[in-house]
């Protein structure tokens, strides 16, 4: 149109129309646009108000917060006094009562570790430091005493030296390279001497508190430890399984497919029972593996198989051209996988991956079947006290609320990750 032409020959840009209808207009447009919609809106509002008022009446207005024994709680409302009475046990289980500050700070340490490592800017060497430090503090507080054997120090020296020598090759100064070589040599020689028995079985004892064995652990730290380390180990393990499943080597492929199908084909409970009851039968007599550790390994194996299938979906969604471009540039398999394929594949599967994580966070509660006192199990045990019999609703509602906080956080984090990782790359 000639009206829109400016003297410079450019076309005038028109502003989009402004919506001036206001709140009432919005209501009219979105809630009451027809008789049918209007009736639906009214019915839904009435239903929500009715349900909410009933719930609030029970949970707040007629609830008892102060009773000192269950029999005082018979007014019909919720008996939150039970939670008040039992919350220490629900949160920390049979951990020695006067030492409850230890699991409390362990939980704080772990949550700090998780929250800081959720930040994308930390995804480099800092992540190792955060997890090393966080795990050390957590287990020092939970166990009270940690003995670090000499061989672990030597292994760390060997691994660090080896990684440095390989990754920093051609980039590092000669002095830095020599440091890596020395580190690796010390680790290697030390380990050989240790295995042949020339070096004594020395260990560094860090023992500021009294020792608390894992059978006394309980409540929220157990749930968080099982879920955190379960998923932290299951994730790389699942990635390896997914890559193995797409391998060209029939043996590796067969093993991975077999493992995934086997694990997916049995319930987690049966795996936990196997780890708890059957595994000790196969071990040479005298050796025992901690029950908690066995449950942890079972969770890792199980989660790994599911994560592998999620990751495989991401791998299959990548266009063939990405693989070909990486090949044509001369990248080798590890480089191609770590630099090109996995970063893209994992981005694609963040929603189903977090979905799996959330599922597993809740599934850790199945360890109660082999007598480990995770959060749901301690909540369950709180009901056993005859003084407070008859209020399962309150306890389970409370437990559900705590689980919800964790799962909802993960869900929001998934949303954040999707936006964060796709910055600039969206078409």
């Amino acid at each position, binding site marked *: 149109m000639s009206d829109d032409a400016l003297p410079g020959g450019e076309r005038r840009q028109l502003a989009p129309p402004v919506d001036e209808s206001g709140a009432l207009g919005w209501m009219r447009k979105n809630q009451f646009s027809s008789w049918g919609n209007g009736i639906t809106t009214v019915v839904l509002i009435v239903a929500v108000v009715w349900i909410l008022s009933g719930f609030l009446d029970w949970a707040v207005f007629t609830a008892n917060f102060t009773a000192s024994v269950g029999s005082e709680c018979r007014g019909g409302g919720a008996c939150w006094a039970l939670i008040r009475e039992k919350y220490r046990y629900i949160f920390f289980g049979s951990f020695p009562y006067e030492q409850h500050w230890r699991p409390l700070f362990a939980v704080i340490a772990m949550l700090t570790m998780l929250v800081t490592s959720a930040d994308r800017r930390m995804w480099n060497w800092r992540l190792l430091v955060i997890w090393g430090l966080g795990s050390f503090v957590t287990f020092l507080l939970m166990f009270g005493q940690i003995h670090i054997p000499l061989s672990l120090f030597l292994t760390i020296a060997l691994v660090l030296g080896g990684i440095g020598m390989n990754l920093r*090759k*051609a*980039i590092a100064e000669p002095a830095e390279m020599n440091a890596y070589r020395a580190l690796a040599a010390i680790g290697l020689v030390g380990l050989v001497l240790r295995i042949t028995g020339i070096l004594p079985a020395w260990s560094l004892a860090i023992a500021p508190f009294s020792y608390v064995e894992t059978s006394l652990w309980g409540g929220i730290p157990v749930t968080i430890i099982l879920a955190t380390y379960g998923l932290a180990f299951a994730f790389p393990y699942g990635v390896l399984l997914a890559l193995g499943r797409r391998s060209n080597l029939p043996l590796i492929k067969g093993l991975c497919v077999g493992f995934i199908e086997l694990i997916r084909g049995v319930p987690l409970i049966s795996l936990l029972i196997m780890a708890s009851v059957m595994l000790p039968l196969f071990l040479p007599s005298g050796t025992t593996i901690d029950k908690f550790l066995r449950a942890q390994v079972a969770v890792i194996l199980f989660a790994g198989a599911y994560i592998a299938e999620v990751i495989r979906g991401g791998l299959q969604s990548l*266009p063939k*051209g*990405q693989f*070909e*471009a*990486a*090949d*044509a*540039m*001369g*990248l*080798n398999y590890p*480089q191609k996988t770590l*630099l*090109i394929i996995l*970063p*893209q594949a994992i*981005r694609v599967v963040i929603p189903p991956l977090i979905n799996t994580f959330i599922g597993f966070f809740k599934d850790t509660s199945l360890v109660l079947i082999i007598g480990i006192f995770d959060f749901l199990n301690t909540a369950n045990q709180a009901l056993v006290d005859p003084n407070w019999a008859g209020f399962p609703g309150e306890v389970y509602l409370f437990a559900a609320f705590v689980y919800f906080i964790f799962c909802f956080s993960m869900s929001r984090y998934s949303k954040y990750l999707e936006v964060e*990782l796709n910055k*600039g*790359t*969206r*078409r």
Partner: protein
Amino acid sequence: MAAMAAKAVRDLSGASSLIELRSVNKWFGQFHVLSDINLDVKEGEKIVVCGPSGSGKSTLIRCINRLEEHQAGDIVVNGVTLSNDVKNIEAIRREVGMVFQSFNLFPHLTILDNLTLAPIWVKKMPKKDAEEIAMALLNRVRIPEQALKYPGQLSGGQQQRVAIARALCMRPKIMLFDEPTSALDPEMVKEVLDVMVELAGEGMTMICVTHEMGFARAVADRVIFMDRGEIVEQNEPEEFFAHPRNERTKLFLGQILHH
């Protein structure tokens, strides 16, 4: 055209062969996609490969850097005979750059990171040096200002120019182009062809699968026509377009040059 004048005086008879294909055969299942291909490419030579779809021209150049495996015959690139040895394949891929029809830039990396990835990881080049080379190449393909953007934010023509710069970052001896302009909107074809003509002017050895006959006329030392997995006819571009000898070539040229 200046490029044509430069080409006319080029004498390749003394140059050594960079790529040699000896009776190369390949099948996709029962389908004989390459049948008895013999081809010599001299250093500095520019070859345009054309032919109907399904004629095996893409497969031919994809065999040269082992994106496809040939089943019979020998392929010698830069003195190295292609075999199943991974080291061998990687050595050849370091010397051969490739540009794809669908660009295949890495969408999760910035333009600069796309360019520096291979020099840093394959050639173990210090990051600073790699970035210098990358910026120089981005200048050459005329998009230095896009260095910190992601591929998804660029137009198709810009992405393809980045892809060319990315391949050049490895300082390859040979460049393979697999229909580099076929996925582009018409107004972007020229900007990519200009870069390729420039590259040819600098003496790069090139094999281009393309239907841009103007480009073939301006740049190619030799045009190869493929049909049903065979090299049907090859000649200098003037001769090839003016007097095609084979009936199939005539038919094909008639179809693509009719307007």
